[in-house]
């Protein structure tokens, strides 16, 4: 099975967030997110670690970073980098990630279409609304293998959408926490700091064996 996605979320995030998708051409003027699958001998690209768990636990990691450190305890990389940046020991990120993250959230809830090809034509097509309603069109007497591929493609597409939305929301939450804890001075850089923190956590999870 091969999988393509018309609108990768962004150069830095895709490798960590998207899972098994390859980038596909973006259809001009079509706001729909298109996920394409086809039966293929070629295996999918290596699967990134599922980031959902990291996203769900990110705020507790951030909370912990601001707690007094017990003697002998060493901070993990993400927490240490964050505290160093807040202390002014390193230059904070100046990347304006706000619009890009907002776009991430939009993509997580945009209209989506999952197409599974049967030869050169679509064999099964499922459209997914912002709130998850589905409409599936399938070719009469579509082979079972095609249906199986489509089923997996829809699952992967839904998971990707949920992850994108969760990533945007988590970043907002982390930014709010950083700014609330550190005060006005950090408000301006809270968002990029939050994204950097989350990005490091995701990279860390991606490198963990067994994920």
């Amino acid at each position, binding site marked *: 099975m091969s999988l393509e996605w018309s609108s990768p979320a962004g150069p830095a995030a895709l490798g960590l967030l998207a899972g098994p998708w390859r980038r596909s051409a973006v259809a001009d003027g079509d706001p729909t997110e298109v996920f394409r699958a086809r039966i293929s001998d070629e295996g999918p690209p290596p699967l990134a670690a599922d980031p959902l768990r990291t996203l769900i636990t990110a705020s507790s990691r951030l909370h912990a970073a601001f707690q007094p450190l017990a003697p002998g305890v060493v901070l993990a990389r993400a927490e240490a980098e964050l505290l160093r940046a807040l202390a002014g020991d390193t230059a904070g990120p100046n990347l304006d990630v706000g619009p890009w993250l907002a776009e991430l959230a939009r993509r997580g809830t945009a209209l989506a279409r999952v197409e599974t090809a049967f030869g050169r034509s679509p064999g099964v097509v499922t459209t997914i609304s912002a709130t998850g309603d589905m409409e599936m069109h399938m070719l009469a007497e579509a082979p079972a293998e095609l249906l199986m591929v489509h089923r997996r493609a829809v699952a992967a597409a839904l998971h990707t959408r949920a992850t994108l939305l969760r990533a945007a*929301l988590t970043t907002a939450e982390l930014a709010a926490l950083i700014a609330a804890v550190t005060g006005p001075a950090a408000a301006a850089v809270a968002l990029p700091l939050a994204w950097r923190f989350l990005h490091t956590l995701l990279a860390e999870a991606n490198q963990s064996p067994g994920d």
Partner: protein
Amino acid sequence: MDSTSPLYFNGINASTGEYLFPPSSAEALVREVTGQGPLDDPEQDNHLAELRDRFESATTVHFGAKMGIDVNDLAQTGWAVVFPAVRPDTDAARRQDAIAEALMPLLDLRRTQATAQDERFFKIYRGIDGFGGRREENKQRYLAHLGAGPGPADPIKVPYYLLLVGSPEELPYSLQFQLDVQYAVGRLHFDTVEEYAQYARSVVAAETGGLQLARELAMFGVANADDPATQLSARNLVAPLADILTPLVPDWKIRRYEGAQATKANLARILGGDATPALVFTASHGAGFSRGDPLQRAHQGALMCQDWPGPAAWRGPISPDFYFAGEDLRPEARPHGLIMFNFACYGAGTPLYNDYGQRSGAKTREQIADAAFLAALPQRLLAHPGGGALATIGHVERAWGTSFVWRGSGKRTGSTAQLAVFESTIRSLLGGLPVGAALEFFNERYAELASDLSQELEEINFGRKFNAVELADMWTANNDARAYAIIGDPAVRLPLAPVGGAPRPAQTLVLRAATAGPAEPPVQAQAQAQAATVAAAPAEAKAQATVAAAPAEAQAPAPATGDTASTRAPAPGETFGLLARLRGLGGAGEPGPFQLFTEGLLHTVAKTLTDLGNLEVRTFVARDMQVALSDPRHPSAGSELRAFTRVSLGGDLESCVPAGGDGVDAAVWALHVDMVKQAQAHRAELLRALLEATTHLTKPG
């Protein structure tokens, strides 16, 4: 003590002023017990066999859920709500829809907690999965329908924490008792839909709003003059229990209200007044009323206080001044977060029939109420508009002294008091265990006693001579242990301040429409409540609904009225509490990246929440996909609709397939079902992500 010594029950008939149940001798009781043994009743026989199995397999770490499951963690135990089955398109169905909607904030919270690892660990049993939908349904048949048999709770099949939502007429007390053997079961039933909503808000606010109660336990032990029952419970239950607990829980302040201190006025201070603790334990008579007495529904199970002069000094009907009933709970009371444990007859509720009479061999059972009902005091406490209690534990039917004294056990120690079950339960509650899991000690005791009793009765049926006193004790203790019931969500736990930390009320928010015009009464809600309310509101209202944070100092449990935040339309960038404060941190002037991002994100969240409604999945089959997909405005052209499923917000599922012909193709149907499951899981994840983010963003920093 011999077989003619009297047994006392904790109940006063407030209609007459007499004991609700006259003291009975062990011999008399045994005659009733053996008049018709439980083994004559096949259903009871099955239940006893299950109890015996449970007792024999129980270990000290066994709490009903299967081995390896941490009952503290809903992600491991699962959580489910059980509704009665109702006929579609009836008033009962519409009312149940409204109740499910009112409970949505609680259901969403539990869904989030229970599905952290596995989507299957959260269930809403309604519709065809509601209780009573099948002929002569009982607990075993119902569990079998849900996919579970007897034995430890396996959350993949049926979650461990079960919240019954319905009256004891719809979901019988016997179902609650029997499920409680292996599951942690609680019940909600209120007269109005708003009370359900209020309870849901209280629990959500307690668990997500930062409510922290002081570590205080109130022990309230009535000892009325000339009254052996309350003197026994004061002397052998309340006082020694307080003595035992004091050194065991040094971080807790134990306030003792014993004898002369156990007055109605002091109980009012404890239940939401200036002396409200985290946990209240009471032992007293419960007020009972004759069937047909107009006060029965409102006052039965009310807690008799020290104000009653006792049976010798007082003759005639009991004055309401002597007991604390639901209506004695004042509007200004603040019982938010409280858990109460009552040892009193009918403290939790009243069954339809006298359970005692059921065993007497009589042809008909004595009806003691027009319908089974919950006691009003727990109902009022849980649904209190100022923030309700989280749960109460009480007795359905009569409470017995054998609950805490055991004949013949005092020869070595000098005391017949047996308090390990009470002590263990209370310590579990103080330690923060969910109330349903904490009550497992009583369920273990019930299993043990029922196992012993069934064995004994079996032997007696085969002609063995019996000791009347021992048998009577086993019987009464068995009944007593069975009848403890939780009113409230069994997964709630005491929201406690850290050791040495100061208590603090829950942070609350004001939800209102952003349109100008006359101010609507503000509704206190937590983030989940907001989302559910927004989702449930009419489309026009939903599009305008926003959430505004009340100022920190106004975020007390008291209903917020007329504060600034609730009477003006918030600007787009200040819709969320913490984020609103951050906007202020950024300073005045042009919106920065943070605000731009926030506005974009909030727009997405608000739009998605606004659009949430029934989930629909349609499956079409086409001969030519190019034709079928050629017109994006009419994507179904050239296709034939072969399956349609609609899932309501409450979880009801409705599927349609073509009638006649060849019916629906198996492969199409399998794919359709799979799509429905994926859509449901995705909807749950979507909702969870939105609600968690909303919750966290609206928390104070």
